[in-house]
């Protein structure tokens, strides 16, 4: 164990192999479409909504299904229980998340050009932190909306948290919360980074032993 760690630590300054650099380039490019793709979506199904209502979350906006009207409809329904209206301008996330994704692309491109294993590890650590933070933030917003209900609302319900991941009954609605195409690209991004580390480490660790 000790040996493996030491060997890995020593390898951190190794510059990346061509294969790893190519993987990094692909990883950087894989993130580009996420600007235009939903990363997450929520479905609301009920008997009188045979097509369901859908809300897509993009890095920079939220969009309702049915040409945007589903978001309007969700807000109309939520007003009965005194939930705040979901308004894009109330989420500063939509301003900084695209910047962060841009940063990840730039760092990946930089590593692809002049990177070492160490810079790759930095990107991975940052990505894990960002993903974790974003999920926590998502949960926190859902919690907030579900717990800050107007006490004068026409319909009184127990405070609740809509699902972050999975399916849950909320009133007469079956609410589903699942990743969309953008999220899978983030997974691909992470996998390519790990593959990049693996290939450089595998090919070049013998050089360390030789020295």
């Amino acid at each position, binding site marked *: 164990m000790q040996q493996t760690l030491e060997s890995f630590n020593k390898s951190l300054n190794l510059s990346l192999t061509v294969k790893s650099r190519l993987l990094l380039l692909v990883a950087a490019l894989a993130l580009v479409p996420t600007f235009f793709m939903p990363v997450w979506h929520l479905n609301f199904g009920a008997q009188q909504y045979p097509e369901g209502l859908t809300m897509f979350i993009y890095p920079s906006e939220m969009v309702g299904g049915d*040409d945007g009207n589903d978001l*309007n409809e969700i807000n*109309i329904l939520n007003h009965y229980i005194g939930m705040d209206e979901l308004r894009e301008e109330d989420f500063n996330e939509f301003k900084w998340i695209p910047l962060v994704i841009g940063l990840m692309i730039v760092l990946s491109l930089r590593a692809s050009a002049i990177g070492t294993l160490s810079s790759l590890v930095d990107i991975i650590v940052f990505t894990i932190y960002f993903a974790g933070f974003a999920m926590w933030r998502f949960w926190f917003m859902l919690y907030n909306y579900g717990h800050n209900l107007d006490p004068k609302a026409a319909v009184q319900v127990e405070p609740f948290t809509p699902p972050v991941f999975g399916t849950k009954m909320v009133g007469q609605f079956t609410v589903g919360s699942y990743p969309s195409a953008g999220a899978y690209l983030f997974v691909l991004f992470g996998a390519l980074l790990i593959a990049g580390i693996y290939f450089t480490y595998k090919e070049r660790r013998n050089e360390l032993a030789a020295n």
Partner: protein
Amino acid sequence: MKTLMKPYLILPVLLAAFALLLSTCEGQKPSRGRGAGGSAQSSAALATYVAPGDLDEYYLFYSGGHSGQIFVAGVPSMRHIATIPIFTPYPGTGYGFDDESKAMLGGYTWGDSHHPALSETDGDYNGRWMFINENANSRVARIDLKDFKTKQILKIPNLSGNHGATFVTENTEYITSATRMSTPFPSGTYADVTKYATDYKGVLVGIKVDPESGEMAVGWEIVVPPFDYDLGDAGKGPSADWMFWSCYNSEREFIEGAKLEVTASQKDKDYVVMVNWRKAAAAAKAGKGRKVNGVDVLLPADVEGGIFYMELAKSPHGVDVTPDGRYIIGSGKLSPTTTVFEFAKIEKAIADKDFSEVVDDIPVLTYNSVRLAEIPVGLGPLHTQFDGKGHAYTSLFVESAVAKWKLPPYDEGADMSQYIVEKIPVAYNIGHLCAAEGDSKTPDGNYLVALNKLSKGRHLSVGPSIPESAQLIDIGGDNMKLLYDAFTEPEPHYAQMIKADKINTVEVYKKDDPYWPKSPHAIWTPEETEITRRGNRVTVKMLTVRSFIAPDVIRVQKGDKVTLHVTNIEQTRDELHGLAINEYNVNIVIDPGETKSVTFTADKAGVYAYYCTNFCSALHQEMQGYMLVQP
């Protein structure tokens, strides 16, 4: 055991047979509830069954007759789905209560809607508009099939009894219209009925349709002898430039006390009149007519070579052009035959000037030169539809049946009765019939609806105001099969049946959809509501949304003239809201994304609640406000 029955057994058998006979005479009562059903009934039931949640294959648009509406049903289930109000106010959708539809109704509170016609491209239904005539007050209306709403009602000047409408030309260039009840020209003129033959006139009309907007305008009118111009049709293919109308009372008599039914049935033949609408339009454009009430009015001589009569068995009703446009089928309702005219023969007779006489400058084509055949379909033939497979279907009013018969070619000198394929009895006294896309160039040949005038005893009794009946008949196989009895309010005349996928509706007026004209009075947020006053004119911009009306208090002075502009800001389908004001006869219904205006005088002081009439949500009951009318 050679003898089948011993003599002493005969008496009891006879008695039993007699008893059975008695019971069947007394019986023939329809069974109540779900019948046991033989296999024929089971297959009919399956053929019309549309499972809950499933959709019908065709739209059926029935005219509502003197109800002034159109009824929309699905085929094959025959379920009534909606009513489109046209010439009559309809509180259910607030039609005739808001300023716009009220203005469209023009002060009339009813109309007699007769013959709906779908717009066509190259002789096929294009699913854009529906037109329908109104007999009593000489109007035509256009319905937009995107939202199933009446968009225009056109009053046709100079004309009385607009019955020979609406039939559209192959590319919806023109709609037909014609006088059923001739009056002194222009209508509104006084002349005693003793001067019927000389001073009374019929009018044939071409109504022009804007190809983009569908807006209708009177193109031209031709003043013709005072016959009763009845039904019409527009040509197709080779005959596409022509319009045809049947007419009765070519005796041109209305003798006080002598009964028109008698005086109009004296001659053996009446006429079909045919007009070349291109020639009529050209004559109007060339300024040959004179302007009467803003319309180019022509005389037959102005349209030389463009107007002819053809003789037809007396008192005809239907005149129907075959899908290929090569034949014109005329039905004289007092003759047991339909007449098949061949358009090629008509063209030849016109070219050869083969006329038997000239009536008021209108040449009459020699009957034997244009007639191809007389088909002995049965008693009281009224109207004919087609299946696109070489058959015609003619309704027989007197016989209460539909006759299926073969279209040409026919063998030379053949006995024409051999071309009658089959007859099916209907209940009862059929008027028009409507086959699936049956008056287009490409009929579908699967369904036929018999529009019967009488339905006695076929339904639970509802007292003496007996509804009409519409029977669905399967014409897809070799034999016609009766599938279903449906009943309608008074009184479908003609109908149109169109494949459902040809109609593309919207169910929400999307805020940014450029198709719909933007209302200058629309508002979309509660912050934009306003009450403004200029003198005693009060204007309120309002909105409705689940579950409130904004503003919820309106203060006016007694005597103010108040206009409410109400926008339903919902963008979700089926979220309609209504707005009624108690005691003020205000009732409008606003569809999602729609803005309607209603104007009234606040002539009663006091406090009047207003509320949403169209159930919308769990808190619909709470959707209310107050209009305070200060004395």
